[in-house]
């Protein structure tokens, strides 16, 4: 390892000088910093801290949400040889004071929401004032010579197993880990990363510093809510997130919910089944509508902090997002193992970083060694001694296995349940099975002590009755080895488990509760707070009156919603409900009911863009079939004499099919329609260019009624149209479509659009070519009436089937060739 310190790190920010480094959009600071600005701000901060008398080894604490200022203070502190102590902004004042006592910082930078009692021992500053504090400081490198062994950070462990301990990390520790991460994952300058985890956690801190050193850009949110995450992903075209599994589960639930609201659940499920066989780029096309909800750019999710359920990881991968899992601990700065972008497994957090030595020691414990491993805990020699064994190997406390270098984590050594038989049960093994059980909202497996050994106790969070939970436990047990079976279960007394900073269930607290007498009390059934109407909630918030009585007939002005508060209310509605409301949608004269209508319309917009369902009503079909068979057929016969060849195989078709035809004439749709057997015709819907249906109302009515037509996009975005074809097929309709996309004027077959290949492989239905010969010129493009009489041959080809493993572009070509040969 080199002699690098953070002085070098900050100097090297020059490499991407003018590229955007950090962006934040909190209400008071709309800030953008380029890499060079971050560098000069860091230098200014360093000079400021020096001027405040901060010396090498002095501690600077930051207790604030993530922001560009946070990073600025971090780097400014490190390059004068001082030590940064990051503390989660969500920590209680009590916890914060405890950390203050342990680290005796000279200055504590706080967010606006934290109020620390004045204390003669340290100075408190608001972090968001740092820009003004340093404004007169020089922007030059303070050029202080640092040693790589110097302490850079003291980070408190989030502690699922014990009280927080201060982990002392050196410049070398952190920089070695950053180098290891970058050797494993090729970070691009084009990475646009959304920050969702606190910088007080090493995972976020090292990850952020790693991507910044490669010229990437990081975006901070004013507050981290699912809505805000989605909004920021759209606004900033985010392509990478460092996430914890819970976030991915939440986002997936949201996607499934949207699909359900749109009646596309089956389509989504089928697409997910198909996607495995598609190349990555195509998965993104197939899940276009999902991706557009997320801004359309998300390519990579790096997860850590907890194991990710394999079905969640698989689903994301199928939607075309690379899931890169890693594993590490605060003590190891933090990453130990990680997957590569192109070499990755979903059932493993990867293999050891190049500068990490990893072995499986006694009891299956994962032990590591390397430049990123810390030197010891703050003021806790006993814990430090416990943590290391001979030759400097650090005991992670996790149990795992290596399989050809790939790590598999079984669980925390401390929570292994040892049965009287001596067999060991890992809570994680049981939980991963139980997580798939929909009737349980949460489960935590702990050992319950008895005279002989331990039994497996499930602590659950569930809405259902005791019987439902008992049944669920039986289902879980049926999927486990007999020795792993859950012996008993109890309800957790609150609506969710206590969680750590990374939202992992705090197993220690659950274990403590089980060990205490509380658990012996009869189970309480907790009643969830009745869901408050979000509209009423937001109005109450805006007028600062939580108890306000609000009726739909009330005028907004009478409730105290003046123009300013109305603006706030609309902003909150947009953010929390994920809709868009125009400024002029409501005025002071509007009532709450009118606002509610606007909100509901906002939700209904997407719904309105979908093709109408009425053409498929039974009586419309009855009428349409009659009109077509009698009137339209008669008109066709006047102008065209049709000779049909082939089509014998159609009799044996058992599933709906896609019929493709060459578009040479305005008349060919109806001609092909009538050349097909009656059995097919009765359930045959025609994909019609969206602009035709939009611009010619009478024609559109005719097409919809007589030919069960639906609109099909001729330009981007195609996916909703392709999805709609899937829905029609799903409902048993045959679909007639022209893969050329527009009418050819030369009579020569034009290239096919690749959407047809995508439909063929993703729907798995037969595709049947239908070729018309001699029709060109009968009703030429834009003519209103037939120009001539024609003798037309319609050739019906054999059905082709394409499996989901095929490349859709190859399939498109194959269909084109088959059509030409027909």
């Amino acid at each position, binding site marked *: 390892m080199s002699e690098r310190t953070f002085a070098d790190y900050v100097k090297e920010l020059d490499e991407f000088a003018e590229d955007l480094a950090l962006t934040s*959009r*909190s*209400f*008071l*600071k*709309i800030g953008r910093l380029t890499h060079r600005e971050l560098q000069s701000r860091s230098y200014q901060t360093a000079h400021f801290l020096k001027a405040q008398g901060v010396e090498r080894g002095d501690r600077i604490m930051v207790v604030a949400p993530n922001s560009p200022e946070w990073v600025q203070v971090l780097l400014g502190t490190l390059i004068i040889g001082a030590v940064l102590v990051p503390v989660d902004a969500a920590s209680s004042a009590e916890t914060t004071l405890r950390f203050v006592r342990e680290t005796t910082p000279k200055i504590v930078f706080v967010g606006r929401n934290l109020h620390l009692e004045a204390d003669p021992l340290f100075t408190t500053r608001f972090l968001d004032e740092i820009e003004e504090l340093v404004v007169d400081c020089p922007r030059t490198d303070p050029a202080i010579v640092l040693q790589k062994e110097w302490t850079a950070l003291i980070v408190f462990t989030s502690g699922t197993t014990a009280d927080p301990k201060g982990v002392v990390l050196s410049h070398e520790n952190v920089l070695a880990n950053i180098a290891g991460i970058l050797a494993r994952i090729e970070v691009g300058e084009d990475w646009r990363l959304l920050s969702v985890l606190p910088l007080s956690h090493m995972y976020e801190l090292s990850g952020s510093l790693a991507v910044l050193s490669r010229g990437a850009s990081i975006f901070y949110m*004013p*507050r981290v809510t699912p809505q805000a995450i989605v909004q920021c992903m759209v606004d900033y075209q985010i392509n990478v997130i460092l996430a914890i599994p819970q976030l991915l589960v939440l986002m997936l639930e949201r996607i499934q919910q949207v699909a359900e609201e749109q009646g596309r659940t089956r389509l989504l499920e089928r697409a997910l089944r198909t996607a495995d066989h598609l190349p990555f780029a195509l998965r993104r096309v197939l899940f276009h509508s999902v991706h557009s909800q997320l801004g359309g750019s998300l390519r990579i999710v790096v997860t850590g902090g907890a194991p990710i359920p394999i079905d969640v990881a698989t689903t994301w991968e199928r939607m075309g997002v690379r899931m890169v899992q890693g594993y590490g601990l605060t003590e190891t700065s933090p990453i130990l193992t990680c997957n590569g972008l192109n070499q990755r497994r979903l059932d493993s957090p990867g293999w050891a970083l190049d500068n990490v030595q990893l072995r499986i020691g006694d009891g299956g414990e994962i032990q590591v060694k390397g430049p990123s491993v810390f030197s010891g805990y703050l003021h806790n020699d006993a814990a430090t001694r416990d943590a290391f064994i001979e030759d400097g190997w650090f005991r992670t406390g996790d149990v795992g296995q290596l399989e050809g270098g790939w790590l598999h984590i079984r669980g925390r050594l401390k929570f292994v349940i040892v049965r009287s038989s001596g067999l060991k049960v890992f809570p994680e093994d049981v939980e991963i099975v139980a997580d798939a059980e929909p009737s349980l909202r949460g489960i935590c497996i702990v050992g319950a002590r008895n005279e002989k050994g331990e039994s497996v106790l499930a602590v659950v969070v569930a809405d259902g009755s005791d019987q439902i939970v008992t049944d669920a436990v039986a289902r879980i047990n049926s999927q486990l080895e007999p020795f792993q079976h859950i012996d008993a279960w109890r309800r957790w007394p609150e609506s969710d488990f206590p969680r750590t900073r990374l939202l992992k269930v705090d197993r220690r607290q659950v274990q403590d509760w089980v060990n205490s007498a509380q658990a012996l009390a009869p189970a309480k059934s907790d009643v969830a707070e009745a869901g408050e109407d979000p509209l009423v909630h937001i109005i109450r*918030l*805006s007028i*600062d009156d939580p108890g306000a009585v609000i009726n739909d007939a009330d005028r907004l002005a009478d409730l105290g919603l003046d*123009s*300013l*508060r109305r*603006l*706030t209310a*609309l*902003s*909150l509605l*947009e*953010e929390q409900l994920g809709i868009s409301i125009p*400024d*002029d949608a409501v*005025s002071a004269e509007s009532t709450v009911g009118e606002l509610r209508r606007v909100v509901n319309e906002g939700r209904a917009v997407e719904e309105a863009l979908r093709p109408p369902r009425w053409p498929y009503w039974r009586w419309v079909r009855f009428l349409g079939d009659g009109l077509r068979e009698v009137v339209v057929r008669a008109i066709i016969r006047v102008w065209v004499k049709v000779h049909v060849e082939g089509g014998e195989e159609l009799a044996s078709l058992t599933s709906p099919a896609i019929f493709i035809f060459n578009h040479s004439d305005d008349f060919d749709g109806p001609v092909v329609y009538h050349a097909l057997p009656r059995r097919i015709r009765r359930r045959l819907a025609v994909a019609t260019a969206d602009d035709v249906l939009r611009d010619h109302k009478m024609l559109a009515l005719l097409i919809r009624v007589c030919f069960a037509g639906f609109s099909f996009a001729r330009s981007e975005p195609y996916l909703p149209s392709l999805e709609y074809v899937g829905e029609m097929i799903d409902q048993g309709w045959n679909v007639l479509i022209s893969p050329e996309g527009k009418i050819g004027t030369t009579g020569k077959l034009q290239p096919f659009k690749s959407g047809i290949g995508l439909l063929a492989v993703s729907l798995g239905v037969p595709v049947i070519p239908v070729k018309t010969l001699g029709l060109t010129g009968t009703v030429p493009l834009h003519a209103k009436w037939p120009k001539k009489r024609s003798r037309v041959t319609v050739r019906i080809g054999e059905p082709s089937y394409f499996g989901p493993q095929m490349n859709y572009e190859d399939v498109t070509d194959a269909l084109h060739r088959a059509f030409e040969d027909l």
Partner: protein
Amino acid sequence: MIGIDVVSFPEFQRQMELGGARFLSRAFGESGAQNKDVEHLAGLWAAKEAVYKAAGIPTLQIADVVITHDASGRSRATAKGQRFDISLSRTAQYVVATAMRIAP
């Protein structure tokens, strides 16, 4: 026509914090809120409201009102082709804006 608007700083700050970035972009446009000073923005808001009242155009949107400064530092505004003179007065708690439509 003359329009007057009064804005309380603490109330404005509360609404600003509550409404977040969307509030700011709705009120001042994506670029209009670079200066995040509460008193400055509250004054800007009051001026826009005063112009809205002076203009007497029910369909006028807050975003349509553009506040400018002339060479002498006086505040002016334009909205839908109309021009306005603006005067602001501050106390510790409040800002009062007056807008008067002037001949085009």
